[in-house]
């Protein structure tokens, strides 16, 4: 069987639960993987216990203090045995996957959504088509979250290996994000507004529903381009963020192909639009033909009574 290695998905210096999904993906290729946890403090590697790993290694290094693609790839490469390497598909993990692959002279396949032995499927053309490739020999594969079931059992303890890498970049300044709100790329529910919201001030109606749901607020490019108060960080789509939440609510968004590119893989899509012919309705699980002025207060009341 092919030896597999999972680079743990990290969030705020902790092992992210989606790492257990990466273990399942690795086992679709080969043996129970070696899970490697990049860390400065080896105790965080305990977070990868009971995720189905064959072995867990805490790769401990000062190089992991801030993210530097080259330094991280070098430090992880030194610890990882040969084999097929699996990472998450967050922007940072895809970047790391590409550098590890190049370091090992391997090919990299990004955003896998299905794996069957050496056959791997991922979306291409912004999700307008799926591509299946076959790999001969080891490769590096990044795997989308929310696709594979989480694995469990397996290794319960981590062994610690000290490692190092040459960190080339340095942080001159951390910049707080424009708002304290949840980022669309991280949220499990996203509610987005488009030009149909009429004015940036009306986004407060989306924000209050987002607060009820624990959701992030997103926007179409038309909204971002038209209103200065709506920052690009909120943009979903081809030239914005790609989101994969379990629920996406599009309000006053027509559903242009470039917007769909960023959200079409959401598990459930709700659309609120006053135009029954808006293309977004062809992609919605639940479509409401109404103005947002009519629909949002009703939606908010119903959600509040359900969730509070």
């Amino acid at each position, binding site marked *: 069987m092919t030896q597999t290695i999972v680079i743990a998905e990290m969030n*705020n210096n902790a092992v992210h639960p989606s790492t257990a999904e990466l273990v399942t993906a690795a086992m679709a290729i080969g043996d129970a993987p070696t899970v490697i946890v990049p860390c400065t403090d080896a105790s965080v590697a305990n977070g990868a216990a009971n995720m189905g790993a064959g072995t867990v290694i805490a790769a401990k290094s000062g190089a992991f203090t801030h993210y530097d*693609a080259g330094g991280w*790839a070098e430090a992880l490469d030194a610890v990882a045995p040969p084999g097929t390497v699996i990472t998450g598909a967050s*922007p*940072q993990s895809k*970047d*790391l996957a*590409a*550098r590890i*692959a*190049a370091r090992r*002279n*391997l*090919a*990299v396949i*990004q955003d896998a959504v299905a794996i069957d032995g050496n*056959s791997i499927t991922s*979306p*291409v*053309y912004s*999700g*307008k*088509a*799926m*591509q*299946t490739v076959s*790999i*001969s020999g080891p490769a590096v594969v990044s795997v989308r979250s929310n696709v594979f079931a989480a694995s469990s059992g397996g290794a319960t303890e981590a062994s610690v290996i000290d490692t190092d890498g040459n960190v*080339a970049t340095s*942080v*001159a*300044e*951390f*910049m*707080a*994000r424009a708002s304290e709100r949840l*980022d669309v790329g991280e949220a499990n529910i996203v509610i987005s507004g488009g030009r149909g919201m009429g004015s940036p001030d009306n986004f407060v109606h989306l924000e209050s529903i987002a607060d009820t*749901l624990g959701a992030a607020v997103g926007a179409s490019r038309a909204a971002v381009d038209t209103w200065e108060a709506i920052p*690009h960080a909120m943009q979903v789509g081809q*030239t914005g963020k*790609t989101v994969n939440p379990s*629920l996406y609510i599009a309000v006053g968004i027509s559903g242009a*192909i*470039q917007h769909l590119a960023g959200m*079409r893989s959401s598990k459930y*899509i*709700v659309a609120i639009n006053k135009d*029954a012919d808006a293309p977004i*309705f062809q*992609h*919605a*699980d*639940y*479509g*409401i033909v109404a103005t947002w002025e*009519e629909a949002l207060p*009703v*939606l908010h009341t*119903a959600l509040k009574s359900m*969730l509070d």
Partner: protein
Amino acid sequence: MPNIVVLVKQVPDTNAKIAVSGNRVDLSAVKMVMSPYDEFAVETALQHREASGGEVTALTVGGAGCDKILKDAKAIGVDRIVRVDAEGEMDSNALQTVLAKAVTELGAEVVYCGKAAADTGAGSTGPGLAERMGWASVSNAIGASFDGGLSVIAPSGAGNAKLNVPLPAVVSCDKGDFKVRKPNVKGIMQAKKASVDVHSIDAPASSVTVTSHSLPPAKPAGKTFDGGAAAAEVAQLLRDEANVL
């Protein structure tokens, strides 16, 4: 004065419908354009030249049909346009090996590229090229400044960070908070006359082969409701039928 290279790739227009026939995408009827993020890479490269002098070379790997996007880059203001002649599919390993040789031949000190090509959506090329060159890299940059050395703004943790980037380096560019310049009449005239410098570089064999393309699984038709009052029913369905609340 740095030698600046910007990578550009030809891809289907993002408005285009992608058809699949015989298990392969059929691009014969599709308009081809420069990949959208590459426009931000070109703009960043030109801003770098304006700040520190030097030359900008636009580089692509592809067939003769890709000359058009090189001419587009020329019209916007790059100095030189270079194409490494290649046909057919290459995996990331083969493509990056070719790019590394080309970037070495061009004597580049800094390379800008798009954060992800609109066809692959991968985002592998920038960091992979940097690793092969032994260079620093930063991906998904949304801004850059050039006085006192290169620094870029890129996502970091929950926010953004301004990073000092020692040269040589590869920077992959996201949509920035700036407008990309458009070609002017003079640029378009120059681009018409400009000739593409064609290189040939051997690519190693690919270990990844495309076996099939398919359309994404069709979603079952959704339910549509008329009038805002239906929002209450939808909320209920989200909980009871979809199980997402």
